[in-house]
């Protein structure tokens, strides 16, 4: 539709950017590397797909520098599905982000799963029309990303491990600190801002509302319906599943089961039903044995 010369339409505002994140709540966002996988994800009821060349488990295995995906591959996935398509840019790599915006992706993930391009600065996300999601391991990191313009936060977990322990640690840290801040008096909030290395107005907003100013989803290590239920009960508002689906023995039924688990996360009978006979989950990794901790990337 030609918007010019008609009504006054404002695009790319914070509300419009956060709005799409609100619409993804209660859903599952799945990593896909081909149009065929994207179709499997959509057929299973995914609310969005993350288009990338290698899932985190393969990035971890292959080593080397992980970069933004080939635009041809992203376009192929956009053509294959009707749901939103996200893609990843390296931390601080604002030109990769400009390219992804030019490709008309629906959300950019400034992601620690790729090799960081800048050791001090994240992307100035206010400069873009396309919304950004960023990872966080704690409340300070989340608020710094929001101050840079992120419209969705995902707890990082440890991508590509199939191990939920880091996701739980990060969620508990973020939500635990939110709870404490709501109990703090106005004088204590100055110290909280200092300790969190986060802007005081955002700390005050968290204290008043008891939540982040943007939705918070969970990523990193989710590989079963029970994992999805766990992080949702802990307070995540939706889940990202990376390697957990397409590195399992039978992706389609597992994808559908995780979608149903994210909706019915408080109903143990439904969780029991959807967990049956899914085959082998992705092989998991112990965190202590990892050479690279992706969650440590970002500042």
């Amino acid at each position: 539709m030609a918007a010019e010369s008609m009504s006054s339409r404002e695009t790319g505002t914070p509300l419009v950017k956060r709005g799409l994140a609100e619409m993804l709540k209660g859903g599952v966002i799945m990593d896909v590397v081909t149009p065929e996988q994207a179709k499997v994800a959509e057929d299973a009821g995914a609310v969005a797909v993350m288009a990338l060349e290698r899932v985190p488990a393969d990035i971890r295995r292959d080593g080397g520098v992980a970069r933004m995906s080939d635009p041809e591959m992203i376009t192929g996935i956009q053509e294959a599905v009707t749901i939103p398509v996200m893609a990843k840019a390296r931390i601080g790599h604002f030109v990769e982000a400009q390219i992804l915006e030019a490709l008309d992706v629906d959300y950019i993930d400034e992601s620690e799963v790729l090799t960081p391009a800048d050791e001090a600065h994240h992307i100035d996300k206010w400069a873009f029309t396309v919304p950004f999601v960023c990872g966080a391991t704690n409340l300070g990191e989340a608020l710094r990303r929001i101050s840079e313009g992120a419209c969705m936060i995902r707890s990082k977990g440890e991508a590509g491990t199939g191990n939920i322990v880091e996701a739980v640690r990060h969620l508990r840290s973020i939500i635990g600190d939110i709870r404490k801040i709501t109990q703090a008096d106005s004088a204590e909030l100055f110290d909280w801002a200092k300790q969190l290395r986060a802007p005081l107005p955002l700390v005050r907003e968290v204290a008043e509302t008891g939540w982040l100013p943007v939705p918070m989803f969970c990523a990193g290590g989710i590989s079963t319906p029970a994992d999805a239920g766990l992080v949702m009960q802990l307070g995540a508002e939706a889940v990202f599943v990376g390697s957990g689906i397409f590195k399992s023995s039978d992706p389609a039924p597992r994808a559908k089961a995780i979608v149903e688990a994210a909706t019915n996360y408080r109903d143990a009978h439904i969780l029991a039903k959807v967990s049956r006979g899914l085959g082998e989950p992705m092989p998991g990794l112990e965190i202590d044995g990892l050479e690279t901790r992706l969650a440590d990337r970002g500042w």
Partner: protein
Amino acid sequence: MKVGVLALQGAFGLHERVLNRLDVAAVQVRTPEELAEVDRLVIPGGESTAISKLLDANGLADPLAGRLADGLPVLGTCAGLILLAAEVVDGYPGQHCFGAIDATVRRNGYGRQSESFHAPIDVEGWESPFPGVFIRAPVIASAGPDVEVLAELDGVPVLCRQGSVVVSSFHPELAEDDRIHRWFIEQE
């Protein structure tokens, strides 16, 4: 009066928050038992493909079709509009559309996220415009003779009513403005 919010996926929490502000008891609906208890229903924004599949998974498709046929008052926003329409163009093959309102919608008709926008919406009889937030929104491509168009944007219907069914292309739950919800719960 018990107002249900279909809570399979999407912005159901925001709808609940608006209803709570209006002192209305809002309940989340995920099962046929929960659906049977409500006097009105809100179908929120979200991904219509995902909600459609979850309606099947949770055994809600037939009970919902039945309640709609019996005249359950319902407010459908964005994805909710798609589910209530008679026909969906550019949709996902086989996604539910219950035909509660005689309208054809084009999914993502307003474009991808880069074209998501907000714009003031003039509603007939209202003193000030309503802040309309459109997120990858569906276009109401055509509406039958029984559909009352309550607001248009650039000549395209964006807020419509047919009997007790109210639909919008935009998201009143994202606005700090309760008028559409209030009007929905107060209508006969």
